[in-house]
């Protein structure tokens, strides 16, 4: 029996707007995943530590303050520093399309913009975790 997909939803930096993070957390949970939410004002190191402790498959990052360029890559680095190379990192918030290539190059698997249906994110997470495990997408 396979265990449910475990997801850490995280607010990185000082931004306090967590409507999106919470809505997505509930949608992932309604889709049968186990979701942990970090709460506000997490540093990249705290998020990576929580990802380690909670043994998650996916980290979902949210930022609406424009700090994503600095903070999202810092989370990936902090995860790698803990040997968590196969955790799928996804992001969302107010992120201009022109920033996306650099974020992907830094190891963020996908960025979901405003207006993305939660069903699309659920589907993406399932596929990404399956692909990571080497199973069929």
């Amino acid at each position, binding site marked *: 029996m396979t265990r449910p997909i475990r997801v850490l939803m995280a607010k990185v930096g000082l931004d306090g707007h967590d409507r999106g993070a*919470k*809505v997505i957390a*509930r949608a992932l*949970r309604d889709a049968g995943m186990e979701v942990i939410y970090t*709460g*506000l004002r997490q540093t990249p190191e705290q998020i990576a530590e929580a990802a380690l402790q909670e043994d998650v498959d996916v980290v979902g990052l949210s930022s609406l*303050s424009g700090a994503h360029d600095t903070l999202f890559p*810092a989370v990936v680095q902090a995860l790698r520093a803990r040997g968590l190379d196969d955790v799928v990192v996804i992001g969302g918030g107010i992120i201009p399309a022109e920033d996306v290539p650099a974020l992907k190059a830094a190891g963020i698997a996908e960025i979901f913009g405003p*207006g993305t*249906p939660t069903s699309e994110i659920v589907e993406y997470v399932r596929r990404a975790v399956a692909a990571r495990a080497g199973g069929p997408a």
Partner: protein
Amino acid sequence: MSQGPSERRFTTLSGLPVERVYGPEHVKGDAGERLGEPGAYPYTRGIYPTMYRGRLWTMRQYAGYATAEESNRRYRYLLEQGQTGLSVAFDLPTQIGYDSDDPMARGEVGKVGVAIDTLADMETLFAGIPLDRVSTSMTINATAAILLAMYIAVAKKQGVRPEQLNGTVQNDILKEYVARGTYIFPPEPSMRLVTNIFEYCAKHVPNWNTISISGYHMREAGCTAVQEVAFTLANAIAYVEAAVRAGLDVDTFAPRLSFFFCSQIDFFEEIAKFRAARRLWARIMRERFGARNERSWMLRFHTQTAGASLTAQQPENNVVRTAIEALAAVLGGTQSLHTNSMDEALALPTEASARLALRTQQIIAYETGVTNAVDPVGGSYFVEHLTDVIEEEAEKHIRRIDELGGATRAIAYMQREIEDAAYRLQRAVESGERTVVGVNAFTIEEEPPRGLLRVDPSLEEAQRARLREVREERDAAAVERALDRLEEAARGDDNLMEPILEAVEAYASIGEICARLRRVFGEYEAEVALS
């Protein structure tokens, strides 16, 4: 879009049922008494007898980013374009009490607003702007006392006395715990800082709006129109109770309380919401708190159009949404208005999009004629019915919050209500039950937009360098003395405004001041639970 009219559910955005047509049977009781006259209790029709005939609302566009120099340029530009008040956006480190060189500030400096570390930055921010002639709203909460002290200090340097200052500090910490997240201290010392500002301003800065009790952020976080009225007024009740407990007479500070609401896209519900909020507050102040000064009964409010209603898809559609929301705010009798820019679902507004947003207000004010008659929708069976319903439903929430021990104890309740409402709306959009043009209907293939405003990443280092310079130039012993005095005052019950002003004038930084207060007050630990 296959739904025929017969299959649709007719409700407001809040989920209130809407009948096919409204008539006199939908308006309850003595309509004359519930309506009253504009400028008279219960102020359903507006707080002034002549409303916009006498004076238009203040066009107050929220702006600020990057450095103090850059923001100063934007303010001068907006004032030249006919904006009538300033509204300062501060970056998150400034709002949460971290200096630009604090590790917690990494990546956030100058991003969603201007970075202010010391009085030197504030001097630059208002250089060449006469503070006796401009009214300034500052979106600052946990650090409101410090920024207000800086504003007073800059004014003094300009030769402007505190009693000549006009403006608002948001200073609404309760909604930060509920929805916006820029809290520092636990509720009790935070409430003390709030009431210290009430008391200090009543004596020294009499024309200052000492708080703007804000439903906006709770609405943006997902609450309904009814909940927005209820939670905002419940928070307001908590502030009034705290101030009265601190020994202030209600009529000394209540006339300086102001409010901040959101204007969402459901046109009639929003108009009714503003009218209901006004009537309910008048009743609360008169009946619950025994306020006798008429000005204590009047709910004066700023409105911002709904950021959450804007879409990243087809951003030009946002101009239309904003115009409709702004019109609802004007028909609802707002005293001041910010219209969002079309690109705000993507980035901070460019100069051109900020100008178009301001022009939207000016077109409503000068071309449409909606300002000629006061409360032009008053007497509409539908609007009066909705006003009654929103008032009644909001009162039920307020009673529930009272039962829980008041707003300071009902933070988790409000959060849960807001999260549920946000999730319900998301489901309604995804199921197609609620249409969002460009998102789940009438979509097109789009190229990503170009020319968005970007904050230069090198600015973070420049701001740190400025702070280093100020630290080197100031009198270090004077800073220490002022900080020691502040810490001592914080341990006792003295009003903290005086020692904060002294620290600010010695060029102590926001981070240094907050570090001392954190030492005494501790920090708020949020509960993390998904409902």
